[in-house]
Every structure is written in C-alpha cells, then in structure tokens.
C-alpha cells in the first residue's frame, strides 16, 4: 500500500513514505513535507520503503528542499531506496539533496 505518514521526532518531523509515489497521490506527500516546513520545523523524508517514484514525487522533494532553504531550516532524505536513488541520479539530484544512510546519521547532522 502506498502512503506517507508524518512522525514527530525530537527536533524534527520525519515523513515516512511507502510504496509507489505517482501523480495520483504525490500531492499528499507534498503537503506532508510542506506542513512542518511551513511551521519552521526541520523535515526528514524516509524513503527506504519506496519502490517507485515519478517526477511529481521528485518535485515534492525539490520543493521541500527549496522551502527549507528559504526558511533557514533543514531538509534531508534518509535511507534512500535503490529505486529512488536511480531516479535521483538520472536527474543529477543525488548531488543536490542532503542524504543520510539512516536516522541516526540524520539526527547527528542536526545536532
């Protein structure tokens, strides 16, 4: 089942994404990412369980990162699955996003 869920972590919001991200629901992902960022909270996106992501999903990540930069807060990707990584590499965005192997590494970057 494809979905995303926002979890409150100490000091940041974690958006956990599952399944296949496509245009039918990528706006939900966009809202989940922009919600905490609009409130000035740092945001991490866990992509470990994403089997496919289309460019509307990638656009949600790009917009989130841009929003975070504009607001002076933090945005990063955690445990990026191979399927997502290959799309990020195609768009050369692997050289743009802060990416972390796991949540511990991401948390360490915030401290």
């Amino acid at each position, binding site marked *: 089942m494809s979905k995303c869920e926002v979890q409150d972590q100490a000091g940041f919001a974690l958006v956990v994404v599952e399944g296949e991200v496509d245009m039918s629901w990528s706006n939900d992902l966009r809202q989940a990412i922009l919600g905490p960022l609009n409130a000035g909270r740092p945001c991490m996106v866990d992509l470990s369980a994403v089997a496919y992501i289309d460019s509307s999903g990638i656009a949600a990540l790009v917009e989130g990162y841009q929003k975070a930069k504009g607001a002076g807060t933090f945005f990063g990707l955690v445990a990026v699955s191979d399927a997502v990584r290959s799309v990020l590499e*195609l768009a050369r965005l692997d050289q743009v996003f802060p990416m972390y192997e796991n949540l511990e590494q991401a948390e360490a970057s915030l401290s």
Partner: protein
Amino acid sequence: MPKKTAQPAEYVLEVEDLVVEYGRRRILDGISMNVRAGEIMVIMGGSGSGKSTLLRHLLGLEVPAGGTVRMLGRDVSEMTNTEMDDLRQHVGVSFQSGALFTSMSVGENVALPLRERQNLDDNTIRIMTRLKLELVSLAGFENLMPSQLSGGMIKRAAFARAIVMDPKLVFFDEPSAGLDPVVSAELDELIIKLRDALGTTIIVVTHELESAFRIADRITVLDHGRVLVTDTVDAVRNCQDQRVQDLLNRTPREMKIDADDYLRRLTEEEPEYVD
C-alpha cells in the same frame, strides 16, 4: 547502473497479423511483434518499408484493415475515445517533426500534458517541466518560442514533452535524424538511462543503424510491409537474410517491376494512395 530485466511474458505491446491497405495497395502485410516491459525495441527499415505506417497504427491513430494491436493489455481497436484518452496518459510520443505548438513557449509545450490531464499544483508542474528540460539539456530555454530553436533543440523539447508524465511506454520517431553526432549520442544515452532508471518501455522507429545498434535490446527489421526479423542486436547483425544484410550494408535495392501492376498504376483513373 544495472539493467532492469523484463519478465518474458509481460508484454506492453502486442501486434498480431496487422494488415494495412491504402486503396488497393497493401502497406503492412501481416505484421506480428511483441514488446516486453522495460525493453528498448527498435523498428528499423528503409524508406517505404512501412515503419511510419506501423507507428501510426501502434498509436491507434488509424484503423487497420486487419489484425490487432494491444497496448498495455488493451485492444486499441475496441477502446472508446475516453478509454483511449486514459490509456494515452501512460504513453508518450516524440514525433519526428517535434510537433510543438508554435504559439506556446518551450516550457508551455513541455508542461501541456500535465496541465491537460493532471490536477497538479503550479509549483509541481514547473519543477517537473524543468526536470525534463534539464534531462534533455534545454535548461534555461523554457521561455523561448519554437521558432527560436534549432532543429536539434526542437527534437529535444519534443522528447521532454513525451516523457513529462513519466509514461510507461514511449515512442520515439526518428530521434536521431538530422541531429549532429554528439547530440544524437546524448539522446541515445538518455533513452537508455530512462529505461534503466524508470523501467520505461521504449519503442524507437529509426533508419539510423548506429543509433539502433547502440540502444536496442531487440530490433525489428521491416521491408515492404513485412517483418524480416525480430531479434537481438547481435543476431540481427549476423542475420543471413539477404534483404537484412542489404539494409545493414546500405546496398541499393534492385527495383523489380511487376509489368502488369506497373502498367495499371500508370494508366488507372483512380490513383492509389502512396505511403
């Protein structure tokens, strides 16, 4: 990056005994071919081989005299206009001429499928459009009009528009024709990357041998409306069929004339259509 392996039975496109006739002339004479999910299939043939006619029928733009075309599991001839419209959300096409709307900017052309079919936020559409323009090395050109672009740029913009919806199946009609070798090689590389990263099934119609050999998983060679061979690049290179070898070696065709047919064509009152 590892190539995605397609399941042998998972066909995205199935063509069976396709027959096309214009007037009394048979343009396609029993074409059968299948394309697997995640495969790059190149349809090759010289001028008049029927490859452009085949493409129009694969896209459901014309109704054949016989046979079937199944795309993404659906028989194209049995679909209503609405069903066909839904199916086309998953199919991208890059026409040889580019077919850009001259009254729209490059960015507007590329974004058009998103604006027509999807209820997406403007920011999302802008980012998706620019992602695709980046892929085809047209970043920064989105505000130019098609009349301000070179032939190669028009082709790349059409390419971006074809893939902006991340379709499951993409048709490229002569992607390399008229391009300089470097741009041509870049587009070939992009076709392979698209398949590898997104698992896109890609059908390329071309007469450019070098490009075909570079990108194809399998090649279908057409001649006079028939399939001469469908096989891997190596098998096609080594195919012993004389007509395949003539095509690969660019040997001029010997014009064989059917005297009665020729005489009829010259004298009949109702002219035939020509492919």
